[in-house]
């Protein structure tokens, strides 16, 4: 089909400004994307990210190594070894989550009878070797970045038999 003069006018003089109008319209709008490493977005309240282990108000670990999180875990990502402390209490000597296996379903959080584990909003798990993905107690028993605004409501702040 022969291109007529009118056709040429339609595609250049008229269509081009129409298309560019959309472009220029967004130039002055607030961008949808974030400058990711520099700016981070707020996650939804129930977002399930990296695990944290919680402490009681007096600083003792909440986890008693009961094994229910490991039993609930569909990916079999949790490994733990209990031990007895000097008071005769049960605690987790070893507590490891394999973050490569973990599917972040949050069952561990739901199963936990001591409100010891919860999934926070952190999601940056990149690492350059596989061993780095096995998170131990030291990695998870840290103060989480939103200490003032907890990710999860904790109902019992003190230990069961505090004297």
């Amino acid at each position, binding site marked *: 089909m022969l291109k007529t003069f009118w056709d040429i006018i339609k595609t250049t003089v008229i269509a081009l400004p129409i298309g560019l109008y959309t472009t220029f319209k967004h130039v002055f709008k607030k961008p949808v994307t974030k400058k990711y490493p520099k700016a981070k977005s707020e996650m939804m309240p129930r977002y399930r990210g990296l695990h944290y282990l919680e402490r009681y108000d007096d600083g003792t670990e909440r986890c*008693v*190594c*009961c*094994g*229910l999180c*490991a*039993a609930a875990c569909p990916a079999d990502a949790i490994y733990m070894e*209990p*031990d*007895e402390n000097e*008071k*005769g*209490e*049960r605690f987790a000597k070893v507590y490891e989550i394999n973050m490569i296996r973990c599917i972040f379903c949050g069952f561990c959080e739901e199963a936990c*009878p*001591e409100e010891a584990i919860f999934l926070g909003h952190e999601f940056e798990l990149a690492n350059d070797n596989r061993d780095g993905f096995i998170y131990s107690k030291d990695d998870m028993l840290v103060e989480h970045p939103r200490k003032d605004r907890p990710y999860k409501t904790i109902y019992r702040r003190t*230990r*069961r*038999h*505090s*004297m």
Partner: protein
Amino acid sequence: MQGRNGLPVCVKNMSDNGKEKEQVTLTIDGKEISVDKGTTVLDAATLMGIHIPTFCWHPKLDSIGACRMCLVDVEKFPKPAVACATEAMPGMIVRTDTDEIVKARRGVLEFMLLNHPLDCPTCDKGGECDLQDNVFHYGIDKSRQAFTRRRVIDDQTTDAFDDKRIGPEIIRNMNRCVTCYKCIRFNKEIAGEYDLGAYERGNHTVIDAAPGEQIDNFYSGNVVEICPVGALTNTDWRYKIRNWKAKQTLSLCSHDADGQNIMLWHDQRQLWRATSRRNDDIDDGWICNIARYGYQYINSPDRLKTPLIKKEGKQVPASWDEAISLISKRFKEIKDSKGSVCLAGLIGGNQSVETAYLFNKFFRNKLHTNNLDYRLEYIDLKGSDETEAYNCLYRAPFTIADLEQADVVFVFGSNFIKDHPAINLRLRKAYRKFGTKVYTANPVETKSADISLDEMIYSPDTETAFIAGLIHAIIDNKYYKNIDETKAAEVKTMLAPATLDEAARLCGIEQERIVNLAKVLSEANNPYILAGDYFVASAKRHRTANGMYDLANLLGIKDSNAIILASQANSMGADRVGVRPRLTENLKKTLIDKWGEELPESPGSNTSQILNNSLDEEIDGLFILGANPAMRYPDGPFVNSALDKLDFLVVADLFETATSAKADVVLPLAGWAEQSGAYVNVEGRYQKFEKAQDADKGIKSGIEIIHSIARAMDLSLNLDNAALMHETKDIVDAFEREARDEAKFFEVKQAQIPEHDNYPYRLLVGNDIHHFGYVTEHCPSLMRFTPEPYLEISPNLAEKLGIDEETLVRIESTTGKLVLKARFSEYFEGDVLFIPNNFSATEVTGLVSREGGGWVKIEKLDDK
């Protein structure tokens, strides 16, 4: 049929004892069932496969109806009845599932949860707890409680869980208790112990040890297992691994000869615990502490991990190839230069029967020597085999469960609780339930005293005189059966001492008591004579065995009812596959059939001859598999010098022992849980056990070791594991013992009791109650019961010598001396002492001579 808790159904009734019972018919949930009279509604329902929840009920304990969980609706009863304590009556109409019953059970559970702390996350019972299961089933998820829970605080040091240690192994948490009293009932009814009790009452009930005591009885582990909640837990399983994470493997106790069935709980890393695996033919579901905690040596950090080879007087680690090629080279040299009679082998009594058979085949069929034995703890192994009487009684076709039908049991020379825990409990059951009369005769008082009608204490080394006295009593009073007077008079002439009076005087027991025992035995329909470890370890056991043979014949006692009990897990297995110098004709024929070759001609040597011959340099190469004669065989210095004289000694063991220290090559050996196999228990019952965990890389099983040595010597044994298992089973099955000849009588002559003027006290050496053999000192739990060797002494003798408990005492005999702490005995009275030989730190066997046993003198050591 499986009942609750995975246990086979057991209906408690008197028909256990072989008596016919009247039948009653009742209706449960619309279905009719006929049961024996005396059966409870709960047992009848269980037989029909109807589950009724319980806490306080246990198939082997009497019902007390303490927990009220098993409520059922019985027509015409005004209110719900407890099924476990209601006897089934003709025409009874029972409903177990009405709304009313469910409501009643929910009410019971709610009351139980009133004070329950709900600390399931930290409770060791979590996951196998009856309360958890029932609460989950009945859905009690709301609490109506408005006040605080009861909390029993005994120990102020733990502010978290209110745990209290009430024994070396037992931890009690009273908050969790539902007061079912199972623990106390077990202790009283089954074990005959009274160290656990319920104090206070109602809501304040506390289960605790008797004041000033600990729960340290020999069966105490069972109370933890039967506790329906986590009120009683043990140190062994404390905070280890959740039960649903552990794998379960069927296994057997690897120590004593009863063959108690256990379940091993383990994962890839290690064994975690052992629980009972009810076998009504053997253990009734109760296992002793040695079976329960005696698995721990497998996980010991002291295990040998690599072979050691002696180089320039020092044992240095080496590779398996090096070790095996050295063994094969030296064995070949000895065989070629001096002949195969210079080679010998000893195997421990807890190696599997397959290992024992392969060991036998390797030595007999490939190395062509008859020098092999498994009896490594007893003196007086005369000739190359035991006497006819001894062998006949040793291999008697005894069954543990039949003991319940006995009317008289005569226990001769055995501390049953120590030697045969399962038989001991069976005897107690027979006594308690069926009124069996028990008589005992021992060199010292034993734990069976409370059930025995007459406990006779003969002076040491007079077993033969005692049995001769008993035969005198039978003949004098004409209690004998099956023979005539002339024969009886003839038998009487074969006895020494020649009269009852003399015999009674020698063994220190009144004549009347011996006559009374003879009378009771002769009047009984189904009498038993059981001989145990004191008998077997006595200096002149063959003479006594002759007496026992005569006694059985005089009284017409059944073949299965007079037995000398074997002592180790696979003693009977080793005996049946022929790990002894001389074989029975029957076994010889079986082996020739199997191997297609004649057996070696040489007479063969037993343990004591092997050691003697090595002293005389007639034996040059010795292979010891899983045994420690240097620590266990009497007369330590003699054994040590015999082992030193050997040209070439190979020891395969789990640990470095006194024996392995003398070896030219030490091989690390796999334990029983690291291989599958079978044991033949004291009854001759062939029982399999499964492999629970893989052995460490550098460790091989006995079967692998024998195979690799044979391969290196170019002697193919040509047996894979499956074929080995089948062949062993065939041989065990084909075993036939020579039956007792009822017309035959042997001489019973008491040996001269040597004078011991300077050494006045008789020393008994044996297993401590919480130890067995030389491996249990690697079990931390058992070490908590008895942590160190001691000298057990009677309080009156101690008072005479001015010895207090815990003071150091010097013990001296002709062959050696020792210093040990004294401990007062609950049972001993006279001049008898006891030292356990389960601790490698003390060479107790150095005090014992091979001929006369141990005679010692003791003195208090100065406080310096």
